[in-house]
């Protein structure tokens, strides 16, 4: 500012001669132009920074959705499977135990061979068998368990293709090859990749094309992704196990952190005398909110697992660790909510003879509840996305079964994402992104609920 205002100052030593005034005016104009340009530039930097940040957000979402949306479709092949009673249930008891342990692979293989009558010889037959996922076995088993009368019948069923073929049809392996181009190609699959990178052999390619041309292959909604637990086979791996684990973990976290957090906040805000001890607690809570999450994992490992001997990989331990982690968030939010209730409410209640606790439980808490719930939901959303502390307490185990109680070994959604992201197969990359989409979906729902709650019940006093 000073360099631009100085020349126009009438007391400046340059004197009031008309020529120098003109030049001073010019100078001022020039400096004004410069300053306005600087102003424009500065604004542009700000807009640029915001656009850059938003561009990164968009890139992240586009990448995740772009690589994950295909996981919601699974290519299946229609098989006419004959379930011979002598193979599946020789005794004819139709006992669910027997049906569950029976081998349906033979029936599936026969159905596959019948699709390719010209495939003879061991290697050709192996190629034919490899088209179908090992999970086909489970699909048929579940059908039979649902309806035991199917044994002895010939059923037409869609079973998942093995992951390589699924990925090829989705165009994830070779951009030039998709379901459509395979169907339309007159001779062979139109590869653009050299043979070494195609994942499947020449023969398998021919079989695949034949299936596609005959219309036996169909892409359908991938229900297995939502109903299965983890698996080594990408086409069988699902998020249900991790989702249930996350649910149990959050349940434990909520059941502990909400009452403890609210009680602590009420005490600190309404009862605690202002002294050194409460000061220490307050500073402590603020610091705890900024301690890296992995340190809570170390605490859980040393105290809950090693000292108390709790089970590894159990949602209940995960819930305990996440409780300690989310408590500061909930306490801070609850205190803010209590602070925003005007003192007149308390005074009125005390004035008509309520005790201090009656005042708080009957009048202050109900008014502060929306704010407390908002803080709790935000804390729960944090807990849902937390990975590092759960790695420390062993929730990274490979768990196929769906956990039935909070004591069973299990994993949680973010850890499942971490585990899958380590797997090199393309089928897992796709599933990782899809699991991320589900996780983000949950988080958006929770945050939207928090925002809604705040909008709906926010009061101005």
């Amino acid at each position: 500012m000073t360099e631009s205002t100085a020349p126009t100052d009438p007391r400046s030593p340059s004197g009031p001669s008309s020529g120098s005034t003109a030049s001073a005016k010019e100078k001022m104009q020039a400096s004004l132009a410069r300053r306005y340009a600087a102003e424009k530039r500065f604004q542009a930097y700000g807009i640029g920074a915001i656009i850059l940040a938003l561009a990164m957000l968009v890139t992240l979402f586009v990448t995740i959705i772009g690589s994950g949306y295909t996981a919601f479709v699974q290519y299946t092949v229609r098989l006419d499977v004959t379930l011979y009673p002598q193979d599946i249930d020789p005794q004819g008891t139709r006992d669910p135990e027997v049906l569950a342990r029976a081998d349906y692979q033979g029936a599936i293989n026969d159905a596959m061979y019948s699709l390719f009558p010209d495939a003879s010889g061991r290697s050709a037959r192996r190629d034919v068998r490899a088209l179908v996922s090992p999970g086909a076995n489970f699909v048929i088993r579940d059908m039979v368990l649902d309806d035991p009368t199917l044994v002895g019948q010939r059923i037409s069923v869609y079973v998942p293709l093995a992951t390589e073929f699924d990925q090829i049809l989705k165009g994830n392996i070779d951009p030039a090859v998709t379901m459509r181009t395979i169907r339309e190609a007159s001779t062979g699959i139109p590869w653009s990749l050299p043979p070494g990178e195609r994942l499947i052999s020449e023969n398998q390619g021919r079989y695949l094309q034949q299936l596609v041309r005959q219309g036996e292959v169909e892409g359908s909604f991938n229900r297995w992704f939502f109903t299965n637990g983890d698996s080594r086979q990408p086409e069988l791996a699902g998020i249900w196990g991790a989702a249930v684990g996350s649910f149990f973990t959050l349940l434990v976290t909520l059941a502990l952190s909400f009452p403890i957090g609210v009680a602590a906040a009420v005490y600190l805000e309404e009862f605690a005398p202002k002294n050194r001890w409460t000061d220490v607690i307050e500073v402590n809570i603020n610091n705890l909110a900024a301690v890296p999450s992995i340190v809570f994992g170390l605490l859980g490992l040393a105290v809950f697992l090693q000292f108390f001997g709790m089970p590894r990989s159990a949602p209940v331990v995960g819930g305990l660790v996440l409780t300690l982690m989310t408590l500061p968030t909930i306490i801070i939010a609850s205190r803010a909510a209590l602070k925003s209730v005007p003192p007149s409410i308390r005074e009125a209640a005390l004035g008509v003879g309520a005790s201090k606790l009656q005042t708080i439980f009957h009048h202050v808490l109900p008014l502060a509840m929306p704010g407390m719930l908002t803080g709790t939901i935000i804390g729960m959303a944090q807990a849902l996305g937390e990975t590092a502390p759960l790695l420390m307490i062993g929730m990274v185990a490979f768990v196929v079964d769906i956990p039935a109680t909070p004591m069973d070994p299990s994993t949680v959604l973010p850890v499942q994402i971490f585990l899958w992201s380590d797997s090199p197969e393309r089928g897992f990359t796709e599933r990782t992104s899809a699991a991320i989409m589900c996780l983000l979906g949950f988080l958006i729902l929770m945050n939207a609920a928090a925002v809604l709650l705040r909008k709906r019940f926010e009061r101005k006093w």
Partner: protein
Amino acid sequence: METLYVIAAILGLTLISFAMGRQRAVARSEGQPRALHSLPNYHGHFVALWCAVPALILLVIWVPLEPMLAMSAALDYFQAHIADPAHMESVRQSKLALLLSLEPNATTIDLSALRADQYNLLQTEIRNMAAGTASTGHAAFMQEVADYYQGYRDTSFLLMVAACVAVAGAGAGVAWRWIAPEMRARNRVEQAVTAFMILCSTVAILTTLGIVLSLLFEAIRFFAQIPLTEFLFGLHWSPQTAIRADQVGSTGSFGAVPLFAGTLLISFIAMCVAVPIGLLSAIYMAEYAHSKVRAVVKPLLEILAGIPTVVYGFFAALTVAPFFRDVGESIGLDVSSESALAAGMVMGIMIIPFVSSLSDDVITAVPQSMREGSYGLGATKSETVRRVILPAALPGIVGGILLAVSRAIGETMIVVMAAGLGSNLTANPLEAVTTVTVQIVTLLVGDQEFDSPKTLAAFALGLVLFIMTLCLNIIALHVVRKYREQYD
């Protein structure tokens, strides 16, 4: 799992005792409710508390103690009967002989002479066999011990149920007899509730205490094996070699300097991304943006803070790192596929909203009169921002940036997924470096021996991490608080 049923039973008894207490209060008032000091509900709560609290305390003590007592009883049983030649023979035939490094002609096993890890193995074996999850190839005698252990636990469980129910009933009975119109039930219930609230507010203190003690305890055991100076100033980090007994404590394998350097490098890159973008966007939002734009853009930016870090890690490993590698290749640079640059940049994106929202708060807290004074002197908006607002807000902004740095140092998943594992002392952002948090995760995920320096090293690293972030937080909170005092 069975414990849950016991808890459910206690809660059921509590409900019944509530109803009984309430009913007795009404009965004792003899149709004159005003004669009661407290409302009937408070009498009910009073009896319910006396029913539930002692029983639950007993349960909380019993449940962790019981397996320990059962195990020590089982080990006593083992010690008392192992001298029997038939038992000894069956142990010698099993895989346990190998685990306990049994002499071929030993006639007995002295438990007190076992090494700590062998002792633990024996206990695990008993536990697994009792739960029926042990692998094959175990001794018949061990099955006997396991059965004894399981029998002890079953008896103990029945005893516990009986004791809990008895304590609950006795508590409720005593309290029920105390009920009288003049009894101050409300005051007593309120005392109990206040005590509960005080207990809850100390959980935060206990957590901090737990963190400090567990980290210190394990770290001290680590420093008993590896000197502190070597850990803090050593330049060579290779914990994997320490598995072999002859290499434990071999020179330089626990020097953490490369980890500190890697952590600082990645945090520095992250701050280089986050500070300019976060600060400039905060200034624009606070000083320039229309309130409608602000209402849309601010929550959008805050989405960045709500995305789980594992998602950023995947994004870094899947998209950003290959992108940098390809760009580097095309201009002839050798960029590692786990470069510090990719991890740091993605971490920077994550931190943008921290910097921007904290700066936004302090910028809007600068009194309006300072802006108006500056405009009155003819300054443009950007000049006001640069020469008046930023200097006034600087302490707060620095505090916010320090908090963001502590966030970056403690961040785990992004670096675990996108940064390297090998320790590498370099300042080149295109190479792979490792960080403190990555090493903690690598050391502790998977099978671990609790006493090896390799596992303990993770706790020493955790202690360093905790102290570093704590210092940063305290400084930052102090700076922010001091600044607030100036303008409020």
